[in-house]
């Protein structure tokens, strides 16, 4: 779960990392009030979960009320690569002597936390990593020991931080590590981490990803994230515990297990079709989950045909069949379905479907056959396969 800049900064502040004072607002008038509170000059910053907002005109400096009003008005509602700006962060402008970079993430390869630090902040860090890798310090932390202040100070020195701010950078790195650890983050990143002319070390931006599996430990973080910019179908899916990603095509996909569903998308694409979504009903999905899943897929009116591809282990095919039958009873789909059921209780599942005689439902025996059938049906070609 990715957080907006200001939400990340609020977590930073909670763990003693220095940030500029600011306010999150959603209207021009509130932006002006916030600017008076934090004091001019201020920075008006679009809150969106996408990089490159500065280049898109989503970050502007204002030194008086009329500028604040103008910039807030321009930025609110702006479309930055498909993300509509609904929230602004109004922050007192900082004087900058140096721009550094700092991050903590889970290194899946080393199976340890990785702290990265560079004095080349404020730019695209991937470029630094590629062109001048010696300027990006990578330091693995013992997950069972944590990051000590001495260790962090060494990282700062290794990275070439100015001698008089080594201590301040070390404090920031330790705090960033604590945010990562205590908030169950998978990534905490600051770019830039600035040094002010007064030699204060502050986070000028934030990028934080929280682990959704650990949110139960952090009730206070459950309301975060960019809810307004979520796709409404994806949001509904999340509420119902179904993994759903909207795509651009016209073939609805319902499967169980992320790997098999991804593979289904690939096979449908290879058969010449274009998937409308990724939907993983999950392990152990029951009739109710399947019904909700069908409802979600059909809520997208671009869908011309649906492929249900189940290979059941923990899932039971008879329950999938019951869910489909229940869904057809309530929703009465107007598009054809291709259903492929294999695995636990598959014979029973297929028997239930055959007996129900659902209109427009075709049975397929293999994944490839199912993909070809659904692509033909979505293209309006009839007469493929037998009605289940």
């Amino acid at each position, binding site marked *: 779960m990715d957080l907006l800049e200001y939400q990340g900064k609020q977590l930073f502040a909670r763990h003693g990392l220095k940030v500029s004072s600011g306010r999150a607002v959603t209207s021009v008038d509130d932006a002006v009030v916030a600017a008076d509170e934090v004091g001019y000059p201020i920075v008006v910053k679009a809150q969106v979960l996408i990089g490159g907002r500065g280049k898109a005109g989503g970050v502007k400096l204002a030194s008086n009320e009329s500028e604040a009003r103008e910039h807030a008005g321009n930025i609110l509602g702006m479309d930055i690569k498909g993300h509509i700006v609904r929230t602004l962060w109004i922050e007192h402008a900082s004087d900058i002597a140096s721009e550094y970079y700092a991050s903590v993430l889970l290194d899946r390869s080393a199976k340890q936390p990785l702290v990265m630090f560079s004095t080349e902040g404020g730019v695209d860090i991937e470029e630094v990593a590629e062109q001048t890798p010696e300027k990006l310090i990578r330091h693995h932390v013992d997950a*069972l020991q944590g990051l000590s202040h001495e260790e962090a100070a060494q990282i700062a020195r290794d990275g070439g931080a100015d001698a008089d701010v080594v201590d301040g950078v070390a404090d920031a790195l330790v705090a960033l590590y604590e945010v990562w650890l205590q908030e169950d983050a998978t990534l905490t990143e600051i770019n830039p981490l600035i040094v002010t002319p007064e030699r204060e070390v502050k986070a000028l931006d934030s990028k934080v990803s929280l682990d959704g599996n650990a949110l139960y430990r952090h009730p206070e973080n459950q309301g975060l994230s960019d809810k307004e910019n979520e796709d409404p179908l994806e949001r509904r899916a999340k509420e119902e515990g179904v993994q759903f990603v909207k795509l651009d095509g016209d073939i609805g996909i319902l499967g169980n297990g992320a790997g098999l569903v991804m593979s289904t998308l690939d096979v449908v694409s290879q058969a010449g079709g274009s998937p409308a979504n990724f939907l993983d009903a999950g392990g152990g999905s029951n009739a109710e989950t399947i019904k909700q899943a069908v409802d979600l897929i059909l809520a997208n009116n671009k869908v011309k045909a649906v492929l249900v591809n189940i290979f059941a282990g923990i899932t039971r095919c008879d329950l999938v069949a019951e869910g489909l039958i229940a869904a057809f009873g309530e929703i009465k789909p107007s598009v054809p379905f291709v259903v492929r059921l294999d695995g636990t209780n598959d014979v029973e599942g297929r028997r239930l479907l055959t007996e129900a005689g659902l209109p427009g439902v075709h049975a397929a025996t293999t*994944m*490839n056959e199912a993909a070809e059938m659904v692509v033909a049906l979505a293209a309006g070609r009839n007469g493929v396969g037998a009605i289940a």
Partner: protein
Amino acid sequence: MSVLVDEGTRLCVAGITGREGTFHTLNNRNYGTNVVGGVTPGKGGQDVEGIPVFDSWADAVSEVQPNTAMIFVPPRFAADAILEAAAAGVELIIAITEGIPAHDELRAYNILRRDHPGTRLVGPNCPGILSPGKANVGIIPASFFEQGNVGVVSRSGTLTYQIGNEIARAGFGCSTIVGIGGDPVPGSSFVDILDLFEADEQTELVVLSGEIGGSAEEEAAEHIAEHISKPVVAYIAGFTAPAGKQMGHAGAIVSGSAGTAAAKAQAFEAKGVRVGRTPTEAAAIAVEVLGGASVGA
């Protein structure tokens, strides 16, 4: 032979008294797996269809000497269950539980590495391990697989079934099917399981099924080139996954070029490992290499 689970397996199940835990434990026993016990704190002394339940892993180990643990408890208790089984001396821990916080996985992995280096963890968020005809530990639908000479290792559960089933349809069987899981910190990697298959007499070929995200496939490709003499056929799911979208598994995140299906396929092919573009094609290549019916292109 086979790897990890077989006739010598003595299985004990954390979470045996839960609905899913009971269902799959009994499934495993019906398959022929020697299930010696279960652990549910507070329910010691009870039994599940004749399988004794213990309060702790220490009790289970002293009473029924399990050598394999299956973890079927809810996510928030899973890391502690893994560590308790390891501390009691169980050598192989297979964690089925899905949705364990990444920091819990990281902590459990590092404690195992530091304090119990002899313990092997497979999973979490995995379908388990099946050695056809010998033992089934987990949720793999065993009736779809025959005994044979193909080793299968996969990050995805249902995809494992799909590929194993394609191989069975072509008339071949499997030595062992190992689901390593799709989480950020898996206890065992492709590399670990490839080494086991390399040393296993029964296994003549390995099918490796990966997916987008992380670098486990790239590391496997390097390892195969240097250490694996048996043929390996790979499959990668997620060629059409849009960049920057998370698709279900915590592991399956694409960002930028590294970690994409195309990059992974390239890493394998650069090391001479053939990659199937669909599960069917991967199985067909495996069959061809094994000397079965040849396939075109």
